[in-house]
C-alpha cells in the first residue's frame, strides 16, 4: 500500500520508525500533485520550495525526538486562509496576486507543530458556492468521477485528501463548506463549534458563521488536527477561552446509551432515496452498537436557507467592501476617478456569484428592507438556535444528511443559483446555531458516489461527536476512490 494512502497516525508512526524521511515523503506528495492536479485541479498554488524547507526542519525535530503528531505531515490549506509569503487568492481575480505578509493563526499553529504545507487549495470564489465551480482557476473535479463536482466551497480541500494529494487539509465552513464536499468526496470533515478555532487570517465571508476545520482520511486524524488548531487566540475576540481538551481521547469509548436524534424535517421530501437510505442505514449501525435513535423536531429549520443567505450575504457585503483596488488586490486600469476605481475594480475583479451575494446583502441591509429581511433573519436565527437546544434535551447527537444528493455533474446546477442555495438545507442551520458538525462517509449512491452522514452536536461537544463518528467509521469502514468498497 502506497505511503500516500496512509493516515496522519500511520504516516507519523512510519516517520518516527525512520521507515521514511520527511523530505522523501514530501517529494512523494509533490510528485503525486504534479501528476494528478491537472486532472483534479484541487491545488491553486503548490509551494515546493517552502514545503521542502519545512520538511527538513521537521526531520530535525523528529530526529531530536520532540515530534508532535503532525510533525512532518504534508498538508494543504484552503486558499482563503492566509499564508505569509505564499499567495492567497480566494480563487478570485480580485486577489489573484495577493501575497499576505502574515499568516492565519491556524497556519502558525500547524507550522509550529512541524506540519509541511504543500500548497493552497482551490475553492469557490471567496467561499461562496457549493460546487467549487466558481473559481477563476476552473472547477475542482471529484476524484471519484471527474465529470462530477467535488462539492464546495472547500472542494479542493476535500478532493486533495480523497485523491491522496495531501495527508490532510484545512477548509472553512460558513454554511456547509467543509461538510458537503467531505460528503461528496468520501472523506471526514469537521466544522467546529463557532469560537473553538481562531478565525484570524481566514479571509472573511460571513464573520458570525465562518469557522475553519479539518478534512482528513479518518476520524482519528480529524481529532489530531483539531488538537492542533483549537483554542483561544488573543487576535480573535470571538475565539473562546476554555480549557484544553485532548480530542483523541475517548474515541474508542463506543456509543452505548448514546441518544441519536433524527429530525423528522430532514427526512421529508426533497431528499434523494440513496442518500436517505445510506444515512438511515448508518443510524441503524449505531443502534446495533448500543445507540438509541429518537425522532426529534426542528420546526424552524425550514427557514434556515433564507435566514442563512440573508445573514451571510449581509455580512459579506461589508466584509468584501474593502476590495477597492487601493491597498491590495485587483485594480482596474480603466478608472478615471475615484468612483470608477471602486466600481470597475470590483466589477471586473469579482465573479458573478460573489457579485450576486454582495448585491443580496446590500439589498437586505438597505433602508426599507433592513427590518423585513436582515433583522427578521436574525430573529429566525434565534428560533433555529432554540430549536436545536430543545432537540438536545432529548438527544446527545443529531444525525442528518449532509446534502440532498450525492455529487452532481459539473455544470449541472451552476446556472440555477436558487437551486444551489436550497441544497444547504441540512448544513446552514448548524452554522446559524454555531454548533459543531462532523461528516463521516457512510455509503454510496447508485452512481457509486460517496455519501456522508452528518452528526451534529451541542456547542463544544466535539469530543462526543468524534467518538460517535469513530464508532460508525469502525462499523462501515473508510472510503477511497478506486478501491472497490
Amino acid at each position, binding site marked *: 500500500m502506497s505511503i500516500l494512502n496512509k493516515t496522519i497516525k500511520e504516516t507519523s508512526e512510519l516517520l518516527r520508525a525512520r521507515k521514511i524521511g520527511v523530505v522523501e515523503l514530501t517529494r512523494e506528495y509533490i510528485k503525486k500533485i504534479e501528476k494528478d492536479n491537472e486532472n483534479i485541479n484541487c491545488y491553486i498554488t503548490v509551494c515546493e520550495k517552502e514545503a521542502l524547507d519545512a520538511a527538513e526542519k521537521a526531520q530535525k525535530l523528529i530526529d531530536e525526538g520532540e515530534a508532535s503528531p503532525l510533525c512532518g505531515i504534508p498538508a494543504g490549506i484552503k486558499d482563503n486562509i492566509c499564508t505569509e509569503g505564499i499567495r492567497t487568492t480566494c480563487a478570485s481575480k480580485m486577489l489573484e496576486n495577493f501575497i499576505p*505578509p502574515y499568516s492565519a493563526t491556524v497556519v502558525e499553529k500547524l507550522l509550529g507543530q512541524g506540519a509541511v504545507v504543500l500548497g493552497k487549495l482551490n475553492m469557490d470564489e471567496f467561499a461562496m458556492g457549493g460546487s467549487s465551480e466558481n473559481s477563476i482557476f476552473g472547477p475542482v473535479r471529484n476524484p471519484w468521477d471527474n465529470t462530477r463536482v467535488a462539492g464546495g466551497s472547500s472542494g479542493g480541500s476535500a478532493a486533495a485528501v480523497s485523491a491522496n494529494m495531501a495527508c490532510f487539509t484545512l477548509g472553512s465552513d460558513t454554511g456547509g463548506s467543509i461538510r458537503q464536499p467531505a460528503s461528496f468526496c468520501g472523506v471526514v470533515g469537521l466544522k467546529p463549534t463557532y469560537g473553538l478555532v481562531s478565525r484570524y*487570517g481566514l479571509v472573511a465571508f460571513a464573520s458570525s458563521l465562518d469557522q475553519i476545520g479539518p478534512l482528513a482520511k479518518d476520524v482519528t486524524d480529524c481529532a489530531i488536527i483539531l488538537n492542533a488548531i483549537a483554542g483561544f487566540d488573543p487576535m*480573535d475576540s*470571538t475565539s473562546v477561552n476554555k480549557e484544553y481538551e485532548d480530542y483523541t481521547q475517548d474515541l474508542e469509548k463506543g456509543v452505548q446509551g448514546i441518544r441519536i436524534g433524527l429530525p423528522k424535517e430532514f427526512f421529508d421530501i426533497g431528499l434523494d432515496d440513496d442518500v436517505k437510505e445510506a444515512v438511515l442505514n448508518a443510524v441503524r449501525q449505531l443502534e446495533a452498537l448500543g445507540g438509541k435513535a429518537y425522532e426529534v423536531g426542528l420546526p424552524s429549520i425550514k427557514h434556515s436557507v433564507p435566514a442563512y443567505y440573508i445573514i451571510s450575504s449581509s*455580512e459579506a457585503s461589508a466584509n468584501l*467592501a*474593502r476590495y477597492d483596488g*487601493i*491597498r*491590495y488586490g485587483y485594480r482596474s486600469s480603466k478608472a478615471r476617478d475615484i468612483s470608477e476605481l471602486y466600481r470597475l475594480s470590483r466589477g471586473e475583479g469579482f465573479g458573478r456569484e460573489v457579485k450576486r451575494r454582495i448585491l443580496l446583502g446590500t439589498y437586505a441591509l438597505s433602508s426599507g428592507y433592513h427590518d423585513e429581511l436582515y433583522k427578521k433573519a436574525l430573529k429566525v436565527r434565534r428560533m433555529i438556535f432554540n430549536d436545536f437546544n430543545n432537540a438536545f434535551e432529548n438527544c446527545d447527537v443529531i444525525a442528518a444528511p449532509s446534502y440532498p444528493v450525492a455529487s452532481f455533474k459539473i455544470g449541472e446546477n451552476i446556472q440555477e443559483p436558487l437551486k444551489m442555495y436550497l441544497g444547504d438545507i441540512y448544513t446552514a442551520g448548524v452554522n446559524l446555531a454555531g454548533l459543531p458538525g462532523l461528516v463521516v462517509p457512510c455509503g454510496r449512491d447508485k452512481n457509486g458516489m460517496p455519501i456522508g452522514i452528518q452528526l451534529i452536536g451541542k456547542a463544544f461537544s466535539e469530543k462526543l461527536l468524534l467518538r460517535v463518528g469513530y464508532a460508525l467509521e469502525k462499523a462501515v469502514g473508510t472510503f477511497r476512490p478506486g478501491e472497490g468498497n
Partner: protein
Amino acid sequence: MDYEVVIGLEIHSELKTKSKIFCGCKNEFGGEPNTKCCPICLGMPGVLPKLNKKALEYAIKAGIAMNCKISRFSKMDRKNFFYPDMPKAYQISQYDLPICYDGYVDIEVNGEKKRIGIERIHLEEDAGKLMHDPFGQGSLIDHNRCGVPLIEIVTCPDVRSAEEARILFETIKTILEYTEVSDCQMQEGSLRADVNLSVRPRGQKEFGVRTEMKNLNSLRAVQRAAEAEAKRQIAVIEKGGQVIQETRRWDDNKGESFSMRGKEEAMDYRYFPEPDLVPIVVDDAWLNEIKASIPELPLSRKERYVNELGIPPYDAGLITMNKKLADIFEEAYKVCGNPKLASNWIMTDILRRINEQGDSVLDSLNGAKFGQILLFLEKGEITQASAKQALDTFLETGEEPESIINRLGLKVQRDENLVLAAVKDVIEKNPQAIADFKAGKTKAFGFLMGQTMAALKGKGDPAQVKKILEEQLNAAINE
C-alpha cells in the same frame, strides 16, 4: 421678521490612548506617512479588530463628566460607506446603543448658566488622511490616523446663538481636557466640530430645514461659521426661497460656506452589529472605578473659587477654562496661603506671559514653586518687582525660588540706617522736588519715593521707606 437660530453640535474628539482602537499601532500625530500601520488598521484580508479597553473607558469617563447615562449593555456596529481613507469601507462605530446617552453640560452665557443636552456619546474609529499629490494627478493616502479612537459627542439642538455655540464647544473642550481623555489639539485635528444649524421665525415651534457644516477646527471658526450660516439662511428665506438640507464646507479664510455638491443621493449606511466584536457590559464596580478617576470639573471648581476663596467670578472663570492654569492656581495658593494674591498674579503676570509666549509657558511653571515665590512676597520678604524677577529667573532656569532670591540678593533691605542714608541722599540731590513738595505738589512725593527705591536697588520695604521719607521731608519742611 425676527428669527431664532437653532444649533446643535457634533463634536469628534480623538482619545489620547497609547495605541489605536483595534490594533497595537501607535496613536500619535504626524510622522512619515503609513509608518504607524499594520494589517489590522489597513483592513487587510482576514484580519480582525480587538477593542482597546482604555478607549472604551475614556469614552465612559467623558460621558460621566457630561452627566450622561452609561449603557450597561452596548455593542459596536458597522457603518458602511466607501471613502479612500477608510480601508475597510466600513467604519466601526456605534449605532443604536451608544455607550453614553442622555446627558448635559452647563455653559455660562453673559454670566447666566444655561443647560445644553447631550444626546449621545459614542465610540468609533478615525479615518486616514488624503493629500493632494503635488507631482502627480492623484491623491495620496496616509493611514497613520486610521483607527485612532474617537468619541463623537452629539448635543441636543439647544443652542440659540453663534456665541453660545462657541461657548459650548469651549466648555466641552475644557471638560475633555480636565478628564484627560483627549489632548484637544485642534490644529492637529484631534478635536473638530460639525455645526448643525437652522433658523425659524421667533415663536414658531417646528424647526426649520437644517444644514450641516463639517470639520470646524477652532472656537473662532465655529462662531463665525454659525453667524454666517444663520445670516445666509435668513437671507434665503427673506428672499422667498427655501433652505436646502445639505452639507456645507466652511472656508475660514473667505469667511463663507459652500455647498458640497455630488451627494445627490442620501447616504444609506446599512448599519449592522459588528460580528467580529462581542457585546460590552459595564457593571457597577467598573463604572465606579471610572467615576473615581474623574477630577473636579471646571464649573464646580469655578463655583468653589468664587464661594470659598472669594475670587471674582470673571477671574475664576478664566482660570478654570484652562486646566493647567487652574492646577497651577490651586497649588500656588495652597503654598502661599493667599488665594487672591495667587489669582491676581495669574490674571496679570501669568496671562501676560501666555499672551506673549503661548500656552507652553505653563509647562515650565510649577504651581508649588510659583507659590513659594508668592509666599516670600506675602511675608514681605521680597518686593513685587523682586517677585517678578524671581519668577523670570525660575521660568528660565527652574532653580529653587529660595536659591534664586538669595543668589540675586532680592530680600528686602530693612536696615534703618541704610534706608535713612538713602533718603537723606535723595533729599539732598533733588532740591527742586523738595521745593515742589513744599508747594503742595503731592506728585513730588511719588518721585522721591521712586528715587529712594531705585537707590536701594528695588529692595527697600515700601512701607518702611515711605515712613522714613515722610519723617525726613516733614523735618526738612519744618526747618
